[in-house]
């Protein structure tokens, strides 16, 4: 490793018993085709891909898993579409039974229009799944109080939404994310709301440990190119955070010495 590479080296992201170099988690939904999804995942440099749990279509032998190299990517099943702790627990147990992952992106929703999480059901499900030995990455709102309670319940990672799922609005309340980060003892991964590369950079500059996104890449006009943009944005934001930015000033400060001739 050369000198510069060594001086900018980052520690790995640790979630439960797992370690990752990439801090970008990418979803597998809504791409124009499986081939584009597969290329986008590669361009993003991700090591963790989210998937949903659904009924097998009888007599349809095509599978998402034909397009995801499970040796290369860690599978993170979600409980999307669940509106109660019981449904989410049932989904997580089924996901684990496939033998592919004991990680779960726990998502218990409270409203079909906003897709905002139900904090009470989310906390209940977290408690049960932690007790059953799951590595729980839990989707939540950006509320610092519930984020702390989920951490206390044993979540391996807390994943506050930047903005509603699929909305592409970016990070609506940076201050809440900052408050969550201040006392967090587990990785904080912003999940949902990312629309473009700068949103990812902002998340990482705040000091978050990672970003999870899907729609921002999948529905971009060129998903593969956007995936690459998200990768670079994630790395840039992380580097900037670790570098320690200069404070903001109201007035100018010259970069060159005073003129002396």
């Amino acid at each position, binding site marked *: 490793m050369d000198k510069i590479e060594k001086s900018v080296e980052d520690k790995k992201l640790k979630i439960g018993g797992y370690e990752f170099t990439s801090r970008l988690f990418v*979803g*597998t*939904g*809504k*791409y124009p085709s499986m081939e584009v*999804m597969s290329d986008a995942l590669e361009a993003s440099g991700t090591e963790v891909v*989210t*998937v*949903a*749990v*659904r*009924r*097998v279509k*009888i*007599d349809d*032998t095509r*599978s*998402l*898993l034909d397009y995801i190299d499970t040796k290369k990517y860690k*599978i993170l*099943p*979600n409980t*999307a579409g669940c509106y109660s702790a019981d449904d989410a627990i*049932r989904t997580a*147990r*089924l*996901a*684990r*039974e*496939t*033998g*592919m992952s004991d990680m779960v992106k726990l998502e218990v929703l409270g409203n079909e229009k906003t897709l905002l999480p139900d904090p009470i059901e989310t906390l209940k499900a977290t408690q049960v799944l932690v007790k059953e030995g799951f590595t729980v990455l839990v989707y939540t709102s950006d509320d610092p109080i519930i984020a702390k309670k989920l951490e206390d319940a044993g979540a391996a990672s807390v994943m506050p939404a930047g903005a509603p*799922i*699929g909305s592409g609005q970016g990070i609506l309340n940076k201050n809440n994310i900052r408050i969550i980060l201040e006392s967090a003892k587990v990785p904080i991964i912003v999940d*949902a709301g990312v629309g473009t590369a700068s949103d990812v950079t902002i998340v990482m500059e705040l000091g978050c440990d990672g970003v*999870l*996104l*899907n*729609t921002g890449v*999948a529905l971009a006009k060129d998903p593969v190119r956007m995936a690459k943009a998200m990768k670079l944005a994630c790395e840039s934001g992380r580097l900037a955070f670790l570098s320690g930015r200069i404070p903001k000033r109201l007035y100018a400060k010259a970069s060159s010495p005073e003129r002396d001739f």
Partner: protein
Amino acid sequence: MKITLNGESRECPEGTTVEKLLDLCKIDKNRTAVELNLQIVPRKELSARVLKDADILEVVTFVGGG
């Protein structure tokens, strides 16, 4: 006898095991999880579990999601 597989009613010969049904439906056991009457059937028990009339099976796999 009649069973329900993923919400659809199906005729099924007496004595059919869960594994046999999955094979008949060309379902890859290594990529799926099975629930019989709301109880998960561990993969190693698929070949031993014999279906009964009115059983309700759910077989799930992974699809694209965020």
